[in-house]
C-alpha cells in the first residue's frame, strides 16, 4: 500500500501545472474564476488547447491519438485541472461516443469520426433518454426502420444536454420490438442537420438552457451510420457506461470546491456572516471533508484495481452515489456561506461582458443557481436510486 508519486510522476505533475499556467486560455480562466457562464466557443477553445498539447483523448488508446496515461497520471491531471479551475470537458464526444466508435466501429467510421472528436471540431450530444424511458432506458421507443440503405427514424429524445450546440447526436434506437426489450436496440449516429431533426429547449430550475428535447420526424439516416451490429446497441451502451464511470466521482472537482469554500469562510467579507465561529456549520464542512477523503481513497482503490486489469465492477456505483452526494452537500454549504445574498437572482452579472458592481459578494448569488442546477447530478447518469439497486442486487446479491 503506497500512494507516493514516483519521480516520473512528479515530473508529469510539473508538466501539467505548466500547461495550466501557460496554455489554458487566460480569458477562459478569468471567466471560470468569476463564475461567468461559458459560451460554446469557450468550450471549444479550451478543448482545442488540450488537443494541441496532445491531451484531449484522456481515456483513448494511443493508436487513435489518446494519451495512454496510467491511472495515476489521470489522477494527477484531474487534480491539477480542478485546481486550475478548468472547465469540465464536454463529455459526449471525447468521453462517451468515442470509446464506442473505437471499440465497436468499423475502420471507415473510426477514420471519419475520431479525428474530429479528438480535435473538438464536431460537437456531439447524447440521445438515450426519452420522455417515457428514463431509469428504464431499455423501454425506449424511438424507431429506426430500415429502408434500402437508410434508416427512417421517428421518435423523441429528451434531456439532451447542450443539444442546441450539437452537430451530431448518438442515439439508442429501436430496430426491433419483438424479443426482449434490450435486444432490439441499436446504436445510431445522426447528423443534426438532417431534415426532420428539431431541437426544443427545456429550461431548468436555475433558469438556464442546458437541456433539450430532440424530435425526429421521418429522419433519413444512412445505414453506414450504424455502429456495430443491429440489435447490439444495449451492449455497447453498457460498455460506454464503464468508461463514463472513470472520474464520475468528481473527487478532484470536489476537492477544489472544498478549498474554495474554505477560502470563502476565511475571507472576512463584511457582507457575509462569520461562519468560522459557527460550530454547526464548521462541523458540516469538516464532515464533508472527511467523507471526501474517504471517497478519494475509494476511488483510488477502484482505479488501482482497474489498472491491474480488472474492469470496474458494479461496486463503482458507490463512486457515483457518494461523489454526487458530496458535491451536492458542498453546493449547499456555499449557499449557507452566501447567507441572504444567496437570494438575489441576477443572471446578468454572470454573463460575459458584465461590468459594474455585483449584487452582494461576486460569488454569492450564483451559489443558489449552482445548488439548484446540481440537483441533476443525483438524477442523470443513472439515478442514485438505480445505483443503489445495482449495489444491492449485483454486489450484495439481494
Amino acid at each position, binding site marked *: 500500500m503506497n500512494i507516493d508519486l514516483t519521480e516520473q510522476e512528479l515530473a508529469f505533475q510539473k508538466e501539467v501545472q505548466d500547461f495550466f499556467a501557460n496554455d489554458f486560455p487566460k480569458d477562459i480562466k478569468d471567466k471560470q474564476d468569476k463564475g461567468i457562464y461559458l459560451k460554446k466557443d469557450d468550450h471549444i477553445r479550451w478543448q482545442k488547447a488540450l488537443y494541441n498539447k496532445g491531451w484531449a483523448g484522456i481515456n483513448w488508446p494511443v493508436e487513435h491519438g489518446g494519451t495512454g496515461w496510467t491511472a495515476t497520471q489521470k489522477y494527477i491531471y484531474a487534480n491539477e485541472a480542478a485546481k486550475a479551475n478548468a472547465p469540465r470537458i464536454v463529455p459526449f464526444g471525447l468521453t462517451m461516443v468515442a470509446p464506442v466508435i473505437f471499440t465497436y466501429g468499423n475502420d471507415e467510421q473510426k477514420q471519419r469520426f475520431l479525428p474530429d472528436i479528438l480535435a473538438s471540431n464536431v460537437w456531439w450530444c447524447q440521445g438515450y433518454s426519452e420522455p417515457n424511458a428514463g431509469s428504464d432506458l431499455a423501454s425506449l421507443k424511438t424507431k429506426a426502420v430500415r429502408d434500402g440503405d437508410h434508416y427512417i427514424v421517428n421518435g423523441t429524445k429528451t434531456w439532451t444536454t447542450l443539444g442546441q450546440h450539437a452537430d451530431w447526436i448518438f442515439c439508442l434506437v429501436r430496430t426491433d420490438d419483438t424479443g426482449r426489450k434490450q435486444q432490439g436496440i441499436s446504436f445510431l449516429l445522426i447528423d443534426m442537420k438532417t431534415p426532420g431533426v428539431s431541437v426544443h429547449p427545456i429550461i431548468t430550475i436555475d433558469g438556464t438552457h442546458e437541456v433539450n428535447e430532440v424530435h425526429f420526424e421521418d429522419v433519413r439516416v444512412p445505414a453506414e451510420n450504424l455502429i456495430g451490429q443491429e440489435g447490439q446497441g444495449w451492449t455497447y451502451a453498457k460498455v460506454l457506461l464503464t468508461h463514463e464511470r472513470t472520474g464520475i466521482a468528481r473527487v478532484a472537482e470536489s476537492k477544489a470546491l472544498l478549498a474554495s469554500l474554505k477560502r470563502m469562510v476565511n475571507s472576512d467579507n463584511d457582507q457575509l456572516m462569520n461562519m468560522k465561529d459557527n460550530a454547526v456549520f464548521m462541523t458540516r464542512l469538516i464532515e464533508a471533508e472527511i467523507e471526501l477523503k474517504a471517497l478519494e481513497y475509494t476511488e483510488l482503490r477502484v482505479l488501482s484495481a482497474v489498472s491491474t486489469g480488472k474492469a470496474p465492477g458494479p461496486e463503482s456505483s458507490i463512486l457515483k452515489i457518494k461523489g454526487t452526494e458530496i458535491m451536492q452537500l458542498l453546493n449547499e454549504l456555499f449557499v449557507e456561506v452566501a447567507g441572504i445574498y444567496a437570494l438575489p*437572482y441576477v443572471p446578468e452579472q454572470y454573463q460575459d461582458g458584465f461590468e459594474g458592481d455585483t449584487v452582494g459578494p461576486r460569488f454569492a448569488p450564483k451559489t443558489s443557481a449552482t445548488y439548484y442546477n446540481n440537483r441533476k447530478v443525483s438524477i442523470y447518469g443513472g*439515478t442514485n436510486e438505480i445505483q443503489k439497486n445495482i449495489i444491492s442486487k449485483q454486489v450484495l446479491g439481494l
Partner: protein
Amino acid sequence: MDFSLNDIQEMMRDSASKFIQKEYDFETRRKLSKSEDGFSQKNWELFAELGWLALPIDEDQGGIGGTVLDTIILQEELGKGLVVEPYFPCILLGANLINSFASDEQKEALLGPILEGSKKITLAHSEGHSPFDISQIKTVAEKTNNGFVINGKKSVVLNAQHADELLVVARTSGNTGDKSGLSVFVVSKDHPGLSIRGYETNDGLRAGDVTFVNVTLGAEAVLGTLDDAFGPVQKVLLEGIVNLAGEAVGIMEKLVDLTGEYLRIREQFNAPIGKFQALQHRCADMFMEKEQAKSMLYFAAIETAKQNDDYEKACAMLKVRIGNAARFVGQQAVQLHGGMGVTDELSVGHYFKRLTTLNAMLGSRDYHLNELVKSA
C-alpha cells in the same frame, strides 16, 4: 388540549384556499412572478377586502387582532399557492412593527392606508453579515441638531422596490452588540440619499439592496421611541420566523401531495414508480418530516402567541426543525420527480427553491442551531 381551528382561523383558511384554487393556479403565478412588478396590485386590494391585511393588526386600529396562531393558518395556504404578493414583508413584518411599536399618531397616519391596500411599508433590518441579530447591524443614524443622518446599507430587503416607505433599523447610540441604542426610522423611498437596487430573487419574488448616503431626517421620522427598538423589532422577527415556518409547512404539504401523485402516475419498468419500496419509504420519510415540522410550528406558535418566557428559544428550535424538514422534503421531491423535478416547467422545483430561500431568511438553520448550542 385543542388543536382545532376557531372561527376566524377557519374563515382565513377557507378564503385563502378558495382564492388559490380559483385564481392562483401555477401558470397564473408564473406570469405574475415574471411581470414587471412581480405581483398583482389587484390581488393586493383583494387581500385587503378579504381582511388578510388587517389580520395581525389590533382591533382598535381597524384590524382583526389576530396572533401568529391566526396568521400561520393563512401563511400555510399562501405557501401552497407560492403567492408572490408581499404579504410577509409588508404586513407580517412592516405593518406588524408599526402596530406594536409606533406612537398613536403614527399608527393613525400609517395603518389606515396600509389596511386599505393603498400603501406598502417594508422592514429594512437585514445586513449581509447579520440577517437576524439586529444588535450587530452597522447602519448608523447620527443625531444632529434637528434630527438624524443615516449612513449604511441594508441587504436583500424584501420588496424594497415596491414599498412607499421603509422601516429602517439603525444604531442611534451605544456600540455594536448592544441591545439598547437601536431605533427605527420611517423613510420614504424617494428620500434624497436613499437608493434602491431592486432585483428578482431565486424564488421568483422581489427584493433590493438599499443604500443610505447622508439621508437627513427630522426627529419625527423616529418610529416609536428612540433607542428602544431592539425588543419590538426582535419580537416582530421572531413572529416572522413562525410565519415563515407556516408558509414552509404549506409548501411541504403541497410537495408531499405532488410527489405522491407523481409516483402514482409515472411508470418505469412496467409499474408505477410508487410501487418501488425504496421510494415508498422515502415518501414516508418526507411525510414524517413534514408532520414533525408542523408539530414544531404549533409548539412555537403557541409559545409566541402567549409570549411565554422561552418563546425566543422555541422560535430558534422551530427554525432548525423547519430547516431540516424543508431541506429533506424539498430535495427529495425534486429527486423523486427525476429529470422533471429540475425543470422550470413543473411547480415542484419552484416550491423547492422557495423552501431554500425561507431557510436563508431571518437566520438559517445552521445559525439558529449554533445559537442554541451556545446557550445550552
